[in-house]
């Protein structure tokens, strides 16, 4: 059976990544981040998203693939998962596409330095590969807390 998944395509460095559109609330330009002291490096701070305080995570730092330099293309994906709302900084948000589930493969062991835990699969598009991120894992609270504890120590 074939099912279509709508994903938002975004760019980190030179790779294309995708997240399920259901989890994305909106895409924003990056502006006015207020830093929060004594937190993990990849938490860049908080922003005011129409009256809601929303934490911002540098997705590249979270995935250990470098740091983001902010450009005009830099976007923030506002993600809603399990009652948490966070913003993910990405290099650019490029497209919204429908992916047929038949072209999604299980994640290989390593892709571009991102450990497989964070990946739900890889979609083979005509001219490129699209890495589908498992956001629940990326934003796993327990893991983030653990990292925080290490930082505090």
């Amino acid at each position, binding site marked *: 059976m074939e099912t279509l998944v709508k994903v938002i395509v975004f760019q980190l460095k030179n790779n294309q990544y995708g997240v399920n559109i259901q989890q994305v609330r909106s895409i924003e330009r990056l502006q*006015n981040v*207020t*830093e*929060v*002291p*004594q*937190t993990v490096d990849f*938490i860049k*701070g*908080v*922003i*005011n998203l129409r*009256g*809601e*305080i*929303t*934490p911002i995570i540098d997705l590249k730092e979270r995935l250990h693939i470098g740091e983001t330099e902010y450009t005009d293309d830099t976007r923030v994906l506002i993600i809603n998962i399990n*009652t*948490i*709302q*966070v913003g993910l900084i990405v290099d650019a948000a490029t497209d919204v596409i429908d992916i047929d589930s038949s072209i999604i493969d299980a994640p290989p062991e390593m892709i571009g330095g991102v450990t497989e835990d964070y990946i739900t699969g890889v979609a083979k598009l005509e001219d490129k590969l699209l890495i589908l991120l498992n956001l629940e894992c990326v*934003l796993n*609270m327990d893991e*983030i807390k653990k990292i925080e504890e290490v930082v*505090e120590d």
Partner: protein
Amino acid sequence: MDTDQYKEIFLDESREHLQAVNDNILKLEKNPNQLDLVNEIFRSAHTLKGMAATMGFEDIASLTHQMENVLDLIRRNELAVTTAVIDITFEAIESLEEMVSEISEGGEGKKDVSHLVSQLERIEKGTASQKVDNIDKEVSVDMNLDQYQSTIISQSKDQGYQAFQLTIQLNEDCMLKAARVYMIFEALEELGEVIKAVPSVEELEEEKFEQSFSLILLSKENEFIIEKRVKQVSEVYSVKVFSLDQIQKEEVTVIEASTEDSKVHEEKPQSKSKSAASKTIRVNIERIDHLMNLFEEMVIDRGRLEDLSKKVGDQELIETVEHMSRVSQDMQGMMLTMRMVPVEQVFNRFPRMVRGLAKDLNKEIELKISGADTELDRTVVDEIGDPLVHLIRNSMDHGIESPEKRVQQGKEKTGTLELRAFHSGNHVIIEIEDNGAGINREKVIEKAIANELVTEECSEKLTNEEINDLIFASGFSTADQVSDVSGRGVGLDVVRSKIESLGGHIFVESEKGRGSKFSIQLPLTLSILATLLVKVVDETYAIPLSSIEETVLLKPEQIMNMQQQPVMDFRGKVIPILSLAEVFQVPSYQKSTEQGNTAVVIVKKGEKMTGLIVDSFIGQKEVVLKSLGELLQDVKGISGATILGDGRVSLIIDSNALVK
């Protein structure tokens, strides 16, 4: 019948009635002769019974029914108010409360009350022999004359009328009771004037009575003539006629002595009941919360408007915005008071608790409550109950000594426990003070060492304050014996964390042998707070005004070093100073080497103070406290964030975490 929609109302009203019963019984215990209290209790119980029966909560209905029977006996002076009666009534109320709270949690409100019911029955039956057959008293209670009627009686007496009380019983097989009543009334009107009937005339005409009814007649005739006249009406089983003179004598003399006085008395209760009846409405707390959220949004926009108007500099605009600010400030006040409820709601349950607990512990304890009308935010009131219960239990169990011991130590036999609530600035303080044993310093240290909270060397250096602080550490309990009341060691630390989660603080002062005092400081409101905005490099931080002692500008030579810790002199006290930029590792911060003045905000936590170095002060601002969300819980030194007028996010500093 689908009664779900009425459940909320039922729950609310039952709680109110139970509370009323509770309060009145406590009063009754002190003044057993005050029969109007019994009437109050009876009314509440009766309403409760009716509501429960309608809603189909049989157990509540049967228990209240039995309570009513006993109360009725008391009301009719056939049963004395004894401790046994009070005890059982309390037990019944407790069961009722349990059932009500079970219903509120979605349960059926079922509970085995047969034990209580039978106990109440026994009280009811057991009194049949002790029946005080005092007709005079019965009459005065039954008829319950109001001031107006008493006045009429006394005035008519001057004109030669006499007041009689008639109790008329109709035949059991009487078919047209209303008609008989009409005939009796007609007969009586010939003799004089009927000024009161129980049940009321309307009820009598609608046949809403059993076989008998009572009335008061003013007449110039004597008792026998009246009796004879009534008996002429057929189907009247019996008539009893008494002169009201003797019964009323006392009241009458009072009224005659000063009619002015009685008028004043008369008006008071009436106006009170009127305002209570018509001027409150029930609003779901969720709606108020929603309103509050909307208002918070508006406060943010207000800040933005204020900024904008200043930027534009148009005088008219500035004036309009200022006016709007003032109005919205008033609105904010109103909104806050809407959410405010008196702490009475929480305090109310303590007298009974203390009474019961004192009995269990074999101690004599007097509870004094003051400031119960102090108002607090509803959420705080909802949450503060448990910590207070804990502290009170703690004081009663560990604090106040047994009567024998107290006498030995030359203290009064009865220990006192004082519960006070009052306003202090932007806070409400709740104090629990006992005149018991106080905190035993040695025992605390001993225990702390045993529980590895401090080392032995350390312990000698501890100040009294630090020792008192130890009792709030987790896993700490000084009771040698684990008692049912307290002493499981899961106590004061939970109390403290609860209070801190409400944005409050708890302190304890204690003197050995003299007692101890727990003070809880609570914020008036949780979501909007007054802050001082300060600037550190490019970041703006908000410091709650409530924790600020003072702001100062220090000259370089006023900053001294003490063991590599910069300190300053503040009114003769040496206090440490911290650089906010360093604590928060604000980026691109360079330690200034300039020789200018340093801006310092002095914050306090209890008695302790710390100076926070900032770059500059911006000004005072009311901000809306927002949480940083799950992802950023427990950031040290930050209690939340707020949105400033320009739309930027500013962090709110939790100065308590910074004061060392």
